[in-house]
């Protein structure tokens, strides 16, 4: 099988100049994204998940931010070293993004219809009649009832879940190759979250859209993603299929995250195992594993040299020296 990835990121470095020094927000991140695939990026606040997404979108504000190294290609075409006019043609049409707070992404004084048709007219060059027709189709596709009448409504007239549907409709308006969802369901109630997850899964499936699903919620990731990358201190520390990652975690941090997450199907007396300490300061170089100060699985090698990327299994890699096989669940991953 020789399929070209839709999106390919190689050695991405994104830095921010701050008063306390240069913050290495994204540190040598590489991944491939295939058509129709949902890739999860998990990690805690400050791990570099969102900055990775913003770098792909060419939305890192410079200064203080700067993508200082790396390559990003979309369908084999360089999209990192392009000018702003070219970037604008790609953003919203070939790569689209949705955020946690749809109210902040929508313009409160314009109708939903206006905001949808604006994107369609800009990127697809349709006339107003055709744009309107397409807008109605899109709203219906994302499950907004009475789409035709709701085009004239303003964002405040929609509920949080409905607003996120509108955002998804706008994002999908030009049939993008890649959809990036940054904590898209974090602010929603679980029953509404379930609806949105269902919708995104269906759309990825039907339209073959590749999705990057950024989340801190391991449960959501387990339910929606095909593959998962775990980020810590700006680096991808482990990446693999969703089953490999949850059943055969191979990085001390991944294991720590799973051990500290309460589950609905837990044993009643389970005591959570928190990860002690706090994430490191990202200014200045790190010679050893950034997770080392908090890691309970560290071995001697961890104190001697920085971890190198190693394959645990086909398509499953980690940046961790320790062998964590004894924590794996029995059976095939």
């Amino acid at each position, binding site marked *: 099988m020789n399929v070209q990835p839709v999106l390919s990121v190689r050695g991405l470095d994104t830095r921010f100049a701050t008063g306390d020094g240069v913050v290495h927000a994204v540190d040598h991140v590489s991944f491939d994204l295939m058509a129709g695939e949902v890739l999860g990026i998990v990690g805690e606040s400050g791990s570099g998940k969102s900055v990775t997404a913003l770098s792909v979108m060419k939305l890192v504000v410079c200064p203080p931010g700067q993508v200082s190294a790396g390559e990003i290609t979309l369908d084999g075409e360089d999209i990192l070293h392009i000018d702003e006019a070219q970037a604008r043609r790609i953003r919203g049409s070939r790569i689209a993004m949705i955020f946690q707070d749809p109210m902040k992404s929508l313009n409160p004084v314009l109708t939903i219809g206006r905001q949808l048709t604006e994107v369609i007219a800009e990127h697809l060059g349709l006339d107003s009649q055709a744009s309107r027709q397409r807008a109605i189709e899109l709203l219906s596709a994302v499950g907004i009832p009475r789409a035709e009448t709701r085009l004239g409504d303003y964002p405040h007239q929609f509920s949080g879940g409905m607003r996120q549907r509108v955002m998804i409709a706008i994002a999908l308006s030009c049939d993008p190759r890649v959809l990036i969802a940054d904590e898209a369901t974090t602010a929603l109630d679980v029953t509404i979250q*379930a609806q949105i997850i269902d919708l995104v899964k269906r759309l990825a499936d039907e339209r073959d859209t590749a999705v990057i699903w950024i989340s801190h919620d*391991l449960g959501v990731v*387990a*339910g929606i993603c095909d593959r998962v990358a775990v980020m810590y201190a700006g680096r991808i520390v482990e990446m693999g299929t969703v089953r490999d990652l949850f059943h055969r975690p191979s990085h001390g941090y991944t294991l720590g995250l799973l051990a500290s997450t309460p*589950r*609905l199907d837990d044993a009643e007396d389970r005591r*959570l195992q*928190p990860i002690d300490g706090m994430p490191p300061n990202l200014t200045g170089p790190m010679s050893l594993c950034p997770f080392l100060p908090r890691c309970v699985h560290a071995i001697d090698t961890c104190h001697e040299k920085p971890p190198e990327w190693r394959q645990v299994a086909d398509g499953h890699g980690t940046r961790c020296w320790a062998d964590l096989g004894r924590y794996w669940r029995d059976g095939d991953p």
Partner: protein
Amino acid sequence: MTRQDILLEVSDLKVHFPVGGMWSKPGAAKSVRAVDGVNFAVERGSALGLVGESGCGKTTTGMAILRLLDTSTGLVTFDGQELSTLDAAALRPYRRRIQIIFQDAYASLNPRMSIGDGLAEPLVIHNLFHSRRQERVRQLLDMVGLPGHFTHRYPHELSGGQLQRVTIARALAVEPELIICDEPVSALDVSIQAQIINLLKDLQRDLGLTYLFISHDLSVVRNLCDQVVVMYLGRVTEIASRRQLYGGAVHPYTKALMSAVPIPDPDVEATRERVILTGDLPSPSDPPSGCRFRTRCPIAIDECAEIVPEVQEVADGHWAACIRI
């Protein structure tokens, strides 16, 4: 549960907010029935979880118990004393015995006060530990796992998890019996969240505290609470022990809510049955007639629009409000 075992009892609690604000005609205004006839009791030394989605009235219930809202009716009985009839002076000792912590720890601390001063403030207000206040502050920091030198720090210097430890220490300062915890771990990263959950559990064990734990997160509630009250649009839909609720919820809303909670295991996620509710939460200012859940309920029948379901006992210690069970 005998009467002596009950520390807090809430009966027929109602909180109605008038809509329209200062420009509305008096008496003519509609009201948002944020909490509409809520009953439950919290056993001494236990943790009761109050769960539900946005707008279900869980936070309002917590505020009404502390009498931080003036628009409430109904009875709140704490340790045998009815609180709603007390005047401000008589209420003060109870304000000491009931403390509250919030989701946003930074917002609940004074940014201009050092951590030490912030922790000493409740001692000053309630006139406690006169000559030993500094010692008490150090002791409190120690209890929540913070180093003593934090007394000289200011809130902006602390991380989210450390700030939440400080607000817990401040609540503990006056030796309360009941702590109302309003989403105390919702804004924290999962590794830090686990630290705070374990801390709350340890403190409860060591100090014999009682918790009213308000949360939208059913997984966290399962880890921490002995009993759970589920609310929807201002009403109680189900009350059960942890085992009963997580082992066999009976109300269609609870079932849907549980099935929507993601579980961090791809195999479980791929195979579990999910009740996906259609539609949105109705407006609390204009709730549906009869059962408030009926507009989204997968098993609603015509009668649900007419009959307001009473909370009935379905098993020992397990109540639900639904005419279909």
